[in-house]
């Protein structure tokens, strides 16, 4: 057996002009949660418990797009989703459309362990959360000022925001609704920002 191994991520598609201090913040958070996972593995905690533990920590920190600090919908609200899978027996659990569950990954775990299903969404997932007694908070808990600003820019420009894929030339005029040639799912990429 090759021993334990762990990897974490905080999202792909990074603004190439991300300020250095933000880069440092991200690296510190990644290091902190890695060490949390390593300590658990050294205490022989099982793989599925370690991934839940680490993702909970990432959800509770506002830096990345999950849990607190989630990206905002067109309505300025937060709608979260998560999944977990145990390679032993390929058991899995997933949730979508959560608005008040503090740690979505733990509800996904409960779907895997305590329900006959593998995926619950929106009102069904919220109802299951209440039945399971998981920690619930107001939707405002997940909203950060940074993301309110980001959504405002996205709406004003009605186009791409911080998307490095748009040719620099179009970037300055993106406020005039210059449509990027890139499509996603049949829609101009300009209505999305990268995760």
């Amino acid at each position, binding site marked *: *057996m*090759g*021993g*334990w*191994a*762990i*990897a*974490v*991520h*905080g*999202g*792909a*598609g*990074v603004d190439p002009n*991300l300020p250095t201090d933000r*880069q440092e913040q*991200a690296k510190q958070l*990644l*290091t902190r*949660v*890695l060490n949390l996972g390593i300590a658990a593995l050294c205490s022989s*905690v*099982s*793989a599925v418990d*370690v*991934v*839940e533990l*680490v*993702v909970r920590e*990432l959800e509770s920190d506002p830096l*990345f*797009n*999950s849990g607190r*600090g*989630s*990206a905002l919908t*067109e*309505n300025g609200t937060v*709608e*979260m*989703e*998560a*999944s*977990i*899978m145990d*390679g*032993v027996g390929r058991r*899995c659990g997933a*949730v*979508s459309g959560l608005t008040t569950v503090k740690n979505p*990954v733990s509800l*996904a775990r409960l779907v895997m362990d305590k329900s006959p299903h593998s*995926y619950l969404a*929106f009102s069904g997932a919220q109802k299951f959360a209440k039945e399971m007694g998981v920690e619930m908070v107001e939707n405002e808990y997940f909203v950060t000022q940074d993301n309110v600003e980001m*959504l405002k820019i996205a709406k004003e420009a009605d186009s791409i925001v911080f998307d490095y894929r748009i040719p620099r030339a179009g970037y300055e005029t993106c406020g005039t609704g210059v449509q990027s040639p*890139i499509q*996603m*799912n049949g829609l101009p990429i300009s209505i*999305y920002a990268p*995760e």
Partner: protein
Amino acid sequence: TVGCVVVDSQGRCAAATSTGGLLNKRAGRIGDSPLIGAGTYACELCAVSCTGEGEAIIRSTLAREVGAVMEYKGLGLQDAVNFVIKERLDEGKAGLIAVSKTGEVAYGFNCVGMFRGCATQNGFMEVGIWD
């Protein structure tokens, strides 16, 4: 989006992914993260967590592809990751992290940067953002 993949000292693999989705998304939009086989997958051989353009990850069932090419083409973990990032995403932009039951760790991405960290029992540890 955030994710974690782990293989423990008994060779058991697991994966978890969590997200708020896309900024300015339509209410009710579901991305790749909760879809087993797309944003998250784990089996006897490996565990995978993806991030990036959800629609591209869904269409390519990206996470399961890593396990599939390991199982059916006999690729090692990093080769499997490189293959699916290169061959399965079409024009989509995404990244993923993965571990194998033999204690390997790997990641790959075809966009500008990915926030990631990885460590193995033999002392290797890396935290990075750019290529």
